């Protein structure tokens, strides 16, 4: 039976099925382009979304003591080694945000200036420059190794190793948290999460009974599956992002590949040519064991450990103090044609037949 790695779920909203209707209510809150897949394989979706096995949530945290910086350096070495092995340049998708800036910092620190210039291309847009002008003018522009990130969908030709800054948001928190605290304030972010506090926010997006349903489902997931502390309001929303949205985040750039390059994509291509910097098991373990390094007492301090590493490199105090997360992929995805589904065999589907993927043995019955 066919299964999906990711999809736009709009065609799957079959209102005649109560389980599908129940499941679909989560998309009141998150985009229909962000299907949820449980990395613990505990919550079964009403459609066959297959867990991409490398993303099964690591639960053995015993003895893990790597720092975030250790994880960054380990990942840098991995990526560079792939580049050296297959003798292809690394194209970093750079938005100017914290995640992709840190990727470049790591590469600049690890590689000699000559090898960096020769091996790394920075795919950016005009917005990337605006988002972090000091870094662009001080570190990227002098090297001049730039290409147009708006050409993302044509870059799956195997000529380079594509490296995105995805999954750092899933390590640190969630963009949902930003939306919540922008409205409610940050005072209760580190308070224990409760049905009332979670449903208060869910209730902005869905009826109370549905909000309670989702609270129960995620609360149960935390209590039965999380191998780490998930107790605060901040951590509740982080867990949703970390455990359920990870898989789609990995595939969403690839999902929008130009039709003429879809045939290039298979597991071997992914292994060598398509990487997100923050995807490793080590980063995930770090995220589960270091809640205190993710945010302090305001939204500006979100990802402060990552920002600290950037600051140590470029001493940009203003960026460290003030940079706030802003989504950048939307701009690149705007008005680009995308399929409706990507199967676990890397088949791109422009039409999805819900019946073909329906899973009657699901958790929403």
């Amino acid at each position, binding site marked *: 039976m066919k299964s999906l790695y990711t999809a736009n779920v709009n065609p799957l909203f079959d209102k005649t099925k109560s389980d599908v209707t129940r499941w679909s209510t989560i998309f009141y809150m998150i*985009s229909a*382009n962000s299907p949820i897949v449980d990395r613990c394989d505990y919550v079964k979706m009403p459609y066959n979304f297959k867990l991409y096995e490398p993303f099964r949530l690591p639960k053995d945290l015993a003895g893990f003591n790597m720092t975030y910086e250790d994880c960054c350096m380990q990942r840098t070495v991995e990526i560079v080694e792939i580049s050296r092995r297959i003798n292809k340049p690394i194209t970093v998708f750079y938005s100017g945000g914290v995640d992709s800036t840190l990727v470049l910092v790591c590469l600049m620190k690890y590689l000699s200036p000559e090898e960096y210039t020769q091996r790394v291309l920075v795919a950016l847009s*005009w917005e990337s420059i605006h988002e972090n002008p000091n870094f662009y003018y001080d570190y990227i522009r002098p090297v*001049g190794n730039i290409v*147009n990130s*708006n050409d993302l969908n044509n870059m799956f030709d195997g000529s380079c190793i594509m490296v995105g800054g995805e999954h750092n948001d899933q390590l640190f928190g969630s963009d949902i948290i930003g939306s919540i605290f922008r409205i409610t304030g940050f005072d209760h972010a580190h308070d224990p999460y409760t049905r009332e506090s979670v449903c208060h926010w869910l209730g902005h997006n869905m009826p109370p009974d549905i909000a309670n349903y989702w609270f129960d489902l995620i609360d149960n997931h935390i209590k039965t599956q999380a191998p780490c502390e998930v107790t605060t309001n901040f951590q509740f929303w982080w867990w949703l992002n970390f455990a359920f949205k990870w898989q789609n985040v990995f595939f969403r750039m690839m999902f929008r590949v130009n039709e003429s390059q879809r045939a290039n994509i298979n597991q071997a291509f992914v292994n060598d040519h398509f990487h997100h910097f923050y995807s490793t098991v080590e980063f995930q373990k770090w995220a589960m064991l270091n809640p205190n390094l993710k945010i302090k007492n305001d939204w500006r301090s979100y990802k402060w450990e990552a920002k600290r590493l950037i600051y140590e490199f470029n001493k940009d105090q203003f960026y460290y103090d003030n940079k706030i997360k802003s989504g950048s992929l*939307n701009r690149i*995805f*705007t008005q680009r044609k995308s399929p409706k589904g990507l199967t676990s065999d890397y088949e791109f589907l422009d039409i999805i037949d819900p019946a073909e993927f329906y899973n009657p043995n699901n958790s929403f019955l």
Partner: protein
Amino acid sequence: MNVMLLVHVDHNGIIAEINKEHHTRGIMACSMNDETQLVTLPDNHSFRFNDTTVHYQMVKNFSFKQLPTRYITPEWIELRTNTINRLKYLGELENISRKVTMTASEYYAAPIFHGLLGTELMKSNPTTNTYASSIQEWAAIQDISVDTAFKELTIMHEQATGTFLRNHALYLKYVRILGQTTGEENMKQVCEDAYMEFLRNAWI
């Protein structure tokens, strides 16, 4: 003041007033038997050209009288109602489209600039280290190598032109669909579909 009117060719009945000149082609694409007239009227004129309870006929010298009742058929009222609604939803479509183009360029003179920039980039060839003198000057002012300047300007140009071209293609697509759509609810749905394709499909 100048007023753009859509006039029926059979009897000079006024179908609607077009408030934005560039909506003219979109509106005219929906009907064969109309033409536009640019009419000069006093600023304080009291004509209600987009009110389907009153019907005007243009007579000589751009003056108006009541449209003879024999022309005020259900079909005529339907034609006027659809046209007036279509104008409203053309405006809605334009607003959706502008959400994308309003941030497509950082420069206030973008339309002129990108036309010129495209020409200058085409005069350049980085493989032979040949660059238009204007690009060399731009690089010198920015204090960067001309090669980097060329890459930066190319990114800027490709991004802006790509955005405008995609947006234009979508705008034309939905103008055409709107032109073939009757009934206010259906037109509203066209705009909702347009919003999905212009913007919402990109949400993650």
